[in-house]
C-alpha cells in the first residue's frame, strides 16, 4: 500500500529523517514510536506531502505523493489542531469534511451516530465553536473527522495524548476494528508504548530519523521496547 524508497529530509544539512526502504501492506495497523525529534511527525508530513523530501519518495498505492494529488481521496489524517477549522461547530466541521470527501449529510450523521459514546456527550450540540473546545475534545473531533468517507489510509499523530482514559480505551477499539474488519491501513504514532503494542500489529522504532527496530507485535514486544528505551 505504502512504499518508501531512499527517503530523507534535511534542514540545512541537518538530517532529520533517513529511511532506505519501508513497506506497509494494506490493512496493517502500523505503529511508529520514538523519542522527541526522532522524525515521526516529519515522516507523516512527508506522507501527506506537507513538506518536500530532500531525496527519495513515498508511493501510496503506486502514486508518488509529491507528484500527483490522486492519493488524497483515499487518505485522511489528523496531525494537530491545524487540521481543525476553529470557527466552525463540530457538526459543521464534520459536514464540511464530508462534502470534501463526497459524503452527504445523512452519511455523516450515520457515521456520527456510531461515535456517540466516543464523544461522551461533550461534542455534539454543545453550542461551542471548535476553537473553544478543550484540547482533548478537539482531538476527538479531529480523529472522528479523519474517519469520514471510508478512507483506505488513516494517519493519526499521537492520537492518545490528551485523551481521558475512557476515550483512550474506546479509541484503541476503534483503531483495531478499522484494520481488522475494514482492511484500513492505519498509521499511528505514540509515546505510550503500552497503547501501541496493544493496537498495532507492527511497530517501527525511529531514532534520530533512522529505523532502528521493525517488530511484528508479540507478547514480548512491550518488554523489548521498554528495554530499548530504558537505554
Amino acid at each position: 500500500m505504502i512504499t518508501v524508497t531512499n527517503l530523507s529530509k534535511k534542514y540545512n544539512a541537518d538530517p532529520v529523517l533517513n529511511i532506505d526502504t519501508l513497506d506497509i501492506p494494506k490493512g496493517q495497523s502500523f505503529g511508529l514510536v520514538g523519542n522527541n525529534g526522532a522524525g515521526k511527525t516529519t515522516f507523516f508530513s512527508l506522507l501527506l506531502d506537507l513538506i518536500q523530501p530532500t531525496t527519495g519518495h513515498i508511493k501510496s498505492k503506486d502514486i508518488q505523493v509529491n507528484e500527483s494529488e490522486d492519493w488524497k481521496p483515499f487518505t485522511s489524517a489528523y496531525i494537530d489542531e491545524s487540521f481543525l477549522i476553529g470557527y466552525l461547530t463540530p457538526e459543521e466541521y464534520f459536514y464540511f469534511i464530508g462534502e470534501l470527501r463526497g459524503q452527504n449529510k445523512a452519511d455523516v450523521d450515520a457515521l456520527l451516530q456510531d461515535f456517540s459514546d466516543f464523544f461522551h456527550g461533550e461534542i455534539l450540540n454543545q453550542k461551542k465553536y471548535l476553537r473553544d473546545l478543550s484540547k482533548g475534545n478537539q482531538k476527538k473531533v479531529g480523529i472522528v473527522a479523519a474517519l469520514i468517507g471510508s478512507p483506505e489510509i488513516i494517519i493519526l499523530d499521537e492520537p492518545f495524548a490528551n485523551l481521558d482514559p475512557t476515550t483512550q480505551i474506546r479509541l484503541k477499539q476503534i483503531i483495531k476494528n478499522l484494520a481488522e474488519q475494514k482492511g484500513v491501513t492505519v498509521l499511528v504514532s505514540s509515546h505510550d508504548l503500552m497503547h501501541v503494542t496493544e493496537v498495532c500489529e507492527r511497530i517501527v522504532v525511529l531514532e534520530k530519523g533512522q529505523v532502528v527496530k521493525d517488530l511484528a507485535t508479540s507478547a514480548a514486544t512491550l518488554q523489548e521496547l521498554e528495554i530499548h528505551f530504558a537505554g
Partner: protein
Amino acid sequence: MLKYFISLEWKSFIRSASFKTNLFLKIMMVIGALWMTASFLLLGFGAYFMIEDGLQMEPFEVVNKALIYYMVFDLAFRYFLQKMPVLNIKPLMYLPIKRTAIVNFAIGKTMISFFNLLHAFFFIPFSIVLIMEGFPALQVIAWYLAILGLVFCNNFINIFINNKDVVFYAVVGFVIVMIGLQYFGVFDITNYTAPIFRAFYAIPYLALIPIVLAVVFYKMAFSYFKKNLYLDAGLSSKHDIAETEDYSWLNRFGSLSTFLKNDIKLLRRNKRSKMTLFMSFVFIFYGLLFFTNAVEAYDGPFWKIFAGIFVSGGFLFTFGQFVPSWDSAYYPLMMSQNIRYKEYLESKWYLMVFATLLSTVVSVFYLYWGWQAYAAVVVGAAYNIGVNSHLVLLGGAYIKTPIDLTTSKKAFGDKQAFNAKTMLLTIPKLLLPMAIYAVGHFTLGEAFGFALVAIFGLAGLLFKKKVFAIIEKIYKSEKYKTLAAYKQTN
C-alpha cells in the same frame, strides 16, 4: 527585575516574525516610519500657518475646538489598534515575580507605545510655533502638558474599555450624533469644550487637573488589571455561543457551495474578518472626499475613477488580498484534503463580486453629486469585477502572512502584506483604469471615458479561467513555502 522585562521585550521585538522578512520590506518599513514622522512634524509646524492663511481663522482657537474630536478619535484609533499586553503575561504569572511588578510592567509598556509618541510629533512643533508667534511660553507649556495628560488618560481608559464593545460603540455613536448636530447647526459641542482646553492655556495651573487625572486613571487601570490577573478572569478568552447554520439555500451553487458556506461563516464568526467587513463599509464613503471637492488635489477628472474603484471595491481589496491567508490556520488540512482549487478560488471570487455589487447599489447616493459621480462608481465596479478581482487573488497568492482570525488588531494591513510583486500589481489595479479613462476623457469626452473603463473591465472576465489556472499553479508551486510560513504565528 526591570532589566529582565526590558530584555524580554527587546527579544520579542527583534525576533518577531515581521522582522524576519526580506530586505526590501525592511527598507520600506523604515521609509514608512520616517514618512509618518516627517508628515506629522510638518503638520505640527505647518498647521498654524495653514489654518491662519488657509481658513483665515485664529489657529489656536481652531485647534482647541477640534481637540475634543481629536481626543475621541484617538481613543477610537487606540481601541482598534493598540494591543493590550495581556498575552505575554501568562508565562510570568507562576514565576516568583510580584503581581504588582507584572502589572506595572504591562501598563508601563502601553505608555511608551507608538500611540503616545505620535502625538508628541504634532503637539511639540505646534507648541514651538505658538511660542515663536508670541504666545507666552509658560502658558503654552502648561497647555501642552495638559494635552499630554489627556493623551495618557486615553491610554489608560483604553485599558478599561478594551474588549467592551458596548462602551466603545456608545462613544462612537455619541460622536457621530455630535458631528451631525454640529454640521446642521443644531448644537455645537465644541462651544462648550473649546473653553476648557483654552483654560489650560489661560490659567496654567489648571493643567495640573489632566495630569492628576492621568495619575488617577493609572491607579484605576492598575487595580483593575491586578484584580483581573487570573486565568479565569481578565486573562481568560471569551467563549462565543455557537449556533449551527447550514445555509442550505446556497446548495444551488452546486459543489461550489461547500466553500461558499464556509467562507460566509469565516466572515461572520471571526473578529478579524468582521473588521474587514466594517472597513469595506467605510470605504463606501471614501468617495465623499473626491466628489464633494473637499480636497483640492483630487479635482482632476481621472481621480473620479480612482474614487469609484475604492468605493465599490473596499471589500474586494481588504478581503481579496489575503486569499488564501484567511485559511492559514488550517492550511495543512486544506492541503491534505481533496481540494478543488478552482472551486476554492471561485467561492472567494463570488463573494468579492457580490460585495462589489452590493457596495455599488448602496452608493447610489452619490447621484446627489451628479451622474458622473455615480457613473464613476459603476464603471469602477465593472473594472473591479472584471479585472481587479483577478489581480487581488493573484497578488494574494504571493502573500504568506498567517492571519490570526481571533483578533481584530492589525486589520489595517499587515506590514508583511507588502512585497515587490503586490506593489507592482497596484499599477494595473489603479493606474491603468485612470489612464484608460483619461484617454477617453480627453478625446471624445467623459461618457466615452466611462464606457472605455467599463468595456475594459468586462473584457477582463474573459480571462477568468486563464487567471485561475495561473493562480492554481502558484498555489501548487508555493505550497511548501506557504505551509511553512503559516506555521509561524507570532
